[in-house]
């Protein structure tokens, strides 16, 4: 135990840089699960299914509450499952040559619902962000087929599957690809789940075509999952009036003892920008004890491969403590490094977050 704490302390001192990138996929890597083991959505994120709810009650927190939560499974009725996530923060951001900003903020309150019309075959899923500000629909789609073993089809508005579905939407790999959980898209998805394989093919409008009424986006992803490792490949092509865009990505996960490693590398070519961009992420999640997770993240971004000396890096250190079921406390520090003449690219962040979910 003391060796582990020593290693953690040394790593922290060595970095003196890190912060909050909150990814939940590390749990899947640690446990060797596919996304659909814990989530209603086979591509991950959002509403937890029955097993996911049980996992959140029993395996995730430092202290379980005995039988007092037995009645809660996420189901309001036989055919209706609900859930939610609320994140409230206090953050302090410091950039060179400018005064610090600090504030309490409600980052998000989302509610999810899944109506099972025909068991194991037909469902309707909704993900609604109800705060801050007014309500905004994130996902709303009809799902037909078997999401655990076989083919399924989704139609409506949903997030596209591409790489690691991180909670931190400002991660370089999510910003650079433009495929993240801030920009749902409308269209259809055909997916396939069988044994270690997960595959998806999406035909959607494309974010840049939201108001143009023209263009389209094709996105595909293939993931192979084994108990201690997984690898995935993803690609996307967008046709738009703004210019065509092509994105490719590789991502992988590995479990070494109590540590889950996540890695992703993406490359983007955008005709409208006339640039090729690249981004990478390496994340280590060390589950020190049940309910305690130390997350270290290193990120890299090259906003234009043809320009030298413009790269950005970002290091994050986050401690996540889950004392009780459905309650998580997070504290983190992040240091951005970029070109010295840009203050935004060199800011530091301290964050404390309260995360409630059900």
């Amino acid at each position, binding site marked *: 135990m003391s060796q582990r704490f020593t290693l953690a302390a040394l790593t922290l001192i060595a970095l003196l840089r890190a912060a909050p990138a909150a990814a939940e996929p590390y749990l899947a890597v640690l446990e060797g699960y596919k996304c659909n083991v814990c989530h209603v959505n086979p591509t991950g994120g959002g509403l937890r299914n029955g097993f996911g709810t049980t996992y959140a009650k029993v395996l995730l927190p430092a*202290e379980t509450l005995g039988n007092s939560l037995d009645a809660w499974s996420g189901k309001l009725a036989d055919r209706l499952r609900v859930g939610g996530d609320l994140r409230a*923060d206090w953050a302090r*951001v410091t950039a060179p040559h*400018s005064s610090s900003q*600090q504030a309490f903020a409600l*980052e998000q309150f989302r509610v999810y619902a899944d109506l099972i019309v025909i068991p194991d075959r037909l469902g309707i899923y909704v993900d609604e*962000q109800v705060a*801050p*500000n007014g309500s905004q629909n994130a996902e709303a789609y009809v799902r037909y087929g078997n999401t655990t073993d076989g083919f399924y089809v989704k139609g409506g508005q949903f997030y596209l599957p591409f790489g690691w579905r991180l909670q931190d*939407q*400002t991660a370089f790999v999510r*910003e650079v690809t*433009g495929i993240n959980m*801030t*920009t749902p898209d409308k269209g259809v998805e055909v997916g396939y789940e069988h044994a270690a394989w997960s595959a998806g093919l999406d035909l959607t409008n*494309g*974010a*840049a075509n939201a*108001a*143009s*009424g*023209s263009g389209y986006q094709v996105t595909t992803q293939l993931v192979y999952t084994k108990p201690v490792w997984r690898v995935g490949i993803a690609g996307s092509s*967008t046709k*738009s*009036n*703004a*210019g065509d*865009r092509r994105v490719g990505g590789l991502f992988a996960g590995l479990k*070494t*003892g*109590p540590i889950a490693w996540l890695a992703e590398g993406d490359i983007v070519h*955008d*005709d*409208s920008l*006339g*640039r090729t961009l690249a981004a*990478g992420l390496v994340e*280590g999640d060390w*589950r020190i004890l*049940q*309910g305690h997770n130390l997350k270290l993240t*290193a990120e890299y971004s090259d*906003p234009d491969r*043809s*320009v*030298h*000396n*413009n*790269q*950005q*890096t970002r290091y994050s250190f986050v401690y996540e403590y889950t004392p009780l079921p459905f309650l998580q406390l997070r504290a983190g520090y992040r240091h951005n490094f*970029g*070109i*010295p*003449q*840009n203050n*935004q690219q060199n*800011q530091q*962040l301290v*964050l404390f977050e309260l995360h409630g979910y059900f």
Partner: protein
Amino acid sequence: MKRFPTAVRGSTGMPAFRGGVAFCVLLVAACAGNGAGLDSNGRPLVPGGTQPPPLAANFESIQANIFTPICTVCHAGGSAPVGLRLDAAASYNLLVGVPSTEVPALLRVKPGDPSNSYLIQKLEGHAAVGAQMPYGCPNTQPCLTASTIAFIRQWITDGAPPAVAVAAAGVAAAGLNGSMAVTAIVPGSMESLSAPPPQIMIAFNHELDVSQLATHTVHLERVVAGTMPAGIERVPARLSVSSANLRALMIWPSYPLSAGHYRVVLDAGSSADFSDVAGRTIALGTAGENGETVISTFDVEVTQ
């Protein structure tokens, strides 16, 4: 506090140690750029060029100090959220007078009325829909300060005019009460670019009647140096008008422009082509020898 069952904790510490070493190596290996030869937005410095102007209540300054360095992290290219591109080539015409996607009853920028401009509401964090911008503020990056937003408010209060250089390029714009007029061209006239523009945008004061547009209406030409008189090459390009903004005509070169001097030209007799649904036609400036009207020129200095 519970320990993990053995099966969950894993085996020995050695694999974790090796993984940790690899992780640390990656951390050390990744280095940020030193910024040499770049402006504050990370773009190559143009010989004789200048750093972005200090923040002021004009579009050129707001673009250089806010939209380009902050907003285009996401709002650029073929994945721009809600189709809103805030790069210099597109931002003005996708902001001013354009209904917002999230609340179509509000214009993104309503000239003269900052409080009812959706841009301001999103930046100040009281928009009816969605997150405050820049995305992640104040959790992962600073929000724009009130003093910074004040410059944008003032620009909108002043009528949200385009950049001075761009406005000056609108040779057909002057004194045209009620008629069609060019209000902006990007790249701006006499502008010198360090990289080829992916498109050229011509903005109008009224929505175009696209049924009147012809493929020859406007074109892009490269002036070939070293010949007397200078030779002219027409650059293959396509024209488009987005249904999201009928006030902007885009010219898309078929290939990246090489270094050289370029001009945007309206064909002879194209006056009737640029009309709105009310039949108002554009008043062109002085035509050249062959009846063409050059409405903008710019240089590309490819540095890569």
